[in-house]
């Protein structure tokens, strides 16, 4: 096996960058740890330890000289599965020695800066269509399809805009579900929609913390108790925010 010699500092920087991108994009904790350690091993660092929590990464490498440890703070997390995939494939090509450290650093920086998300309008459209489809899946009638689409789309739009305005996740989710409840109640009152319950359930679905729940379970089972519990708490908070937003509307009816 060909082992490249690099300064521990540089290797750690690249590993932490990869870890940071993955964690910010919503990868599972064990995948982040695994990727970082594999990359370090490929760059010739035999012993490395990574401790990943949803809010920060601690990475320690034993190279030549004294052991170095670095910490990266993660403050903003979103869901961007494309970035996870890209970093994953970069790490694969590092492990099979297809690219060297400089190249990897360059590629990762590129991924970090790129904005790969679908256009915002497409996302809102997707949320709206998903809401409509969920209505049908939960045995709603086709008459309610359009109201549910509008309510779901507006809810998602509200979520993103409120979050830009005031980056407190709990509050923007609360307001988004409040809008959904309000719109649905309005539609039913105007006679455009029939079943209030079904419309609300369908439109709320795009806000549901599905990724968080899935990752929380996988982390817990992989033994990452801290990450699993904190992701579970985040999912619970989101569910609670959605529930209270709807509840406020319902209590006025």
């Amino acid at each position, binding site marked *: 096996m060909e082992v490249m010699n690099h300064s521990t500092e540089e290797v750690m920087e690249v590993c932490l960058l990869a870890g940071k991108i993955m964690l910010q994009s*919503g*990868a*599972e904790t064990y*995948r982040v740890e695994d990727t970082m350690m594999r990359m370090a091993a490929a760059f010739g660092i035999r012993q490395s330890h990574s401790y990943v929590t949803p809010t920060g990464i601690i990475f320690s490498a034993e190279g030549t000289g004294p052991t170095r440890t670095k910490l990266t703070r993660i403050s903003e997390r979103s*869901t*961007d*599965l*494309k*970035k*996870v*995939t890209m970093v*994953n*494939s970069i790490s*694969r090509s590092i492990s099979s020695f297809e690219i060297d450290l400089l190249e990897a650093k360059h590629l990762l920086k590129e991924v970090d800066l790129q904005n*790969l*998300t*679908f256009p915002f309008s*497409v*996302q809102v459209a*997707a*949320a709206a*269509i*998903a809401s*409509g*489809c*969920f209505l*049908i*899946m*939960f045995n709603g009638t086709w008459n309610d399809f359009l109201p549910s689409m509008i309510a779901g789309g507006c809810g*998602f739009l509200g979520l993103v805009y409120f979050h830009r305005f005031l980056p407190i996740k709990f509050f923007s989710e609360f307001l988004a579900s409040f809008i959904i409840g309000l719109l649905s109640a309005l539609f039913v009152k105007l006679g455009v929609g029939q079943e209030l*319950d079904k419309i*609300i*359930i369908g439109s*709320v*679905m*795009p806000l*549901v913390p*599905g*990724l968080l*729940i*899935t*990752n929380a*379970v*996988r982390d817990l*089972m992989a033994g990452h108790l801290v990450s699993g519990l904190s992701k579970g708490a985040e999912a619970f908070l989101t*569910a609670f925010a959605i*529930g*209270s937003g*709807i*509840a406020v509307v*319902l*209590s006025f009816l």
Partner: protein
Amino acid sequence: MKILEQLITSFIATGAFGIIFNAPTQSLVKCGLVGMFGWLIYVVMVDQRADVVLATLSATFLVAVISHILAKAYKTPVIIFSVSGVIPLVPGGLAYDAMRNFVQNDYGHAVSLAAEAFLLSGAIAFGLVFSEVLNQVIRKINHHEQVK
């Protein structure tokens, strides 16, 4: 007819979720298919009066197994496929009903609905775990054969 309607809407809904989660464009259709199969199992089992918890468990298990297979075949992380596939099975309706009863001060009914929603979430968790276990067991067996 009803099944067809369910199949189409679940396919579109899961694919749309792929867009919201920004899954790679070429995997959107696969996401939709994964979600569709999961939902098919769920709908058919509920139609046959099977227990909802059991239906959710089986559907999640299937979703996770297909996701593992796809992930291996396309060399991508598993979550890309499993996350959107699991979404339709999340007990949003029950949680909503529970919330509604809480607001209307019908606590007894609300708690029982909340308990059911909790059980369903547990079923989703178990489905994911079972497939993970299966995956690890298969990997272990393959590894042993290679060592021999």
